[in-house]
């Protein structure tokens, strides 16, 4: 199911496979994952903890540390100058230049993602300085503007603050401003609101959404919070045990989930209007990726398991327009 890299594409990942060679055995963290990101859209990557979401996004800029290894895959990326490159093939130095410049990450935990020894301003300055040659004073001005943009009051003074002097929400805003410092083409936000309370979460998400629309970037949002997905994302990829099991428009996924896993996932979201005695769960746990189940990886937990599920891997099929699913139920 190979697709063409069209004018609207920013990123296209084909058959990405990442394995970790640990003492316990080979962990098949990501297996033949393919997805694409279009211009000016927010794509959500959803899945349980350990389903390979973070590894997938790290692999995009080849930041897989030993003992991990990217086994195969093709990552086509449209650079700022409209040139299309395969991120798997370019040199280490080149990919380092792309990181933080054209592809930027927002980190999961803003508390530990900031070096305690440097002020917020120094963090932003450093990121800009490493990718561009601009005068120090101009960089400082850009940094202050960025902080103002993400909604930090008194940025001229706050810029000299150390991370420990800021609140969690402020830190997350600072981290976002660091990521935005070089106006990236693609922003990858790895659970950007996990450690924040709900009101701040909403503010941060609104901010991200606004920034993406305003600056014409694309964003990959990693989360396991379906509420966030419904609010922010344009398209959704559901990941399970290192594979993408379903993808499509956010409306289609929410109104007519096809894969049993997605259906159960959506059922697990509590409805605030009903009094709940017991929260709905998906029975079982995510399988060990050292020895993943044969056939469809979800079959041990699936209520509709058929014979074929245990034997053969389901292919990705287009069940309806722009709605893909990998499940034998729809064959």
């Amino acid at each position, binding site marked *: 199911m190979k697709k063409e890299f069209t004018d609207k594409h920013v990123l296209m990942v084909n058959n990405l496979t990442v394995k970790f060679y640990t003492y316990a055995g080979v962990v098949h963290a990501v297996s033949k994952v393919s997805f694409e990101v279009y211009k000016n859209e927010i794509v959500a990557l959803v899945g349980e903890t350990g389903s390979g979401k973070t590894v997938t996004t790290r692999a995009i*800029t080849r*930041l897989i540390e*030993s003992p991990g290894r990217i086994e195969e895959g093709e990552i086509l990326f449209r650079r700022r100058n409209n040139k299309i490159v395969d991120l798997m093939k370019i040199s280490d130095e080149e990919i*380092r*230049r*792309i*990181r*933080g*410049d054209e592809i*930027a*990450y927002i*980190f*999961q*935990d803003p508390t*530990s*993602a*900031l*070096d*305690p*020894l*440097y*002020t917020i301003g120094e963090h932003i300055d*450093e*990121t800009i300085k*490493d*990718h561009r040659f601009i005068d120090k004073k101009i960089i400082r001005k850009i940094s202050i503007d960025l902080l103002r943009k993400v909604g930090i009051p008194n940025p001229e*003074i706050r*810029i*000299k*603050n*150390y991370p420990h*002097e800021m609140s969690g929400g402020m830190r997350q805003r600072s*981290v976002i401003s*660091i*990521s935005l410092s070089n106006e990236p083409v693609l922003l990858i936000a790895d659970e950007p609101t996990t450690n924040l309370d709900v009101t701040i979460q909403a503010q941060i998400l609104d901010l991200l959404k606004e920034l993406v629309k305003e600056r014409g970037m694309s964003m990959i949002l990693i989360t396991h919070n379906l509420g966030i997905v419904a609010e922010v994302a344009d398209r959704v990829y559901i990941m399970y045990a290192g594979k993408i099991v379903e993808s499509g428009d956010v409306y289609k996924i929410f109104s007519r989930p096809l894969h049993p896993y997605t259906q159960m996932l959506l059922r697990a979201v509590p409805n605030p209007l009903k009094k709940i005695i017991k929260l709905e769960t998906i029975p079982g746990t995510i399988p060990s990726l050292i020895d993943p189940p044969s056939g469809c990886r979800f079959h041990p937990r699936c209520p509709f398991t058929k014979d074929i599920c245990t034997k053969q891997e389901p292919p990705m099929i287009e069940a309806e327009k722009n709605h893909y699913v990998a499940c034998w139920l729809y064959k």
Partner: protein
Amino acid sequence: MIRDLIYVLLEKTIDLYIKIRTRFDKEYMIKNSSRIREWKLIAYAYSRSSIGVLGGLIVFITIILAVIGPLVAPQPYWVYPIMENPETRYLPPCIPPICSGRPLLGTDEWGRDLLSIILYGFRISFVISIVIVLLGAPIGIILGLISGYKGGLVDETIMRLTDIFISFPGLILAIAFASVLPQRIREVLEANIYLRDFFSYLFGLRPQEYGQLAALLSVWFAMVIVWWPGYARVVRGSVLSVREQPFIEAAKLLGLSTWKIMTRHILPNIISPVLVMMTFDLATATLAAAALSFLGLGPQEPVPELGYVISKAGNFFPEKSLHVVAIVGSVLLFIALGWNLLGDSLRDILDPKTRRSIEYRFERRRR
């Protein structure tokens, strides 16, 4: 009392610095308020620690004596009063009112004033220890950084090399180097007048003593060569724990170069244990260098290296030379004690966790 004085002194110094900076940048104080607060906190924490203040005082005296010692010494070290008056050999120390012209601390075997010998010796010991640590530590730090950060084969190679150096007792390795190096260094010094002048000035010696200077420098080199492995190990260990921190990963994700990550994010985060270690090592290096000279591998007559002076006096110990051994030994103890006390207090001050209770008191005092 002294503590308050020290704090006021340090605070004044910081204020002065701020004042100078404010002259160039009007908003310096507002922008750097958190940094200034941190400095004052460190100053306060330091002034609260008795051993730190004592150590700092001793180190201060050591530095002053090392700098001005050779200039104020009442007698040069290259005279031999014994030639004129055999009575001057190993004169015991005297108590001021009844000295009647005799040297205060007594004399050594050549009848030289022991006070002058010690003042010269201070300079030599101090310079040696400082340079050993300042050259040895960076080598160890750089190797440890690379080894810890890169990992894999690079790590293995560097660490096995370090193991080889550590598995030899440091002093023995230094002895081996110190017995091979002097001839080479002597040739170099003979050929290069400026180098000779520079080093003799550094050690407070006469340029014509370049033969002895070569011996001194060989001790120096030998110590530097065996000094780095400890740092490489400590730094590597700290790097391993810091490199797993999320902010290092964040730096990688932001596309910072490896060099920048190592120097800007890893090194500053591991520097405080290294600083403490360096302070302690200044004491150890002083003693180790004296030990090499004591064994006869350092300079010979008439260079007043403290270890060598003790070793010479040892021949007539304790009947005649008790005072020489006792006094020069105490001087070495004094230097080592100062650095050790300072290092001890630095360890407490540089660690924000142990400083917490002091910070609390500081805040209360301010209010």
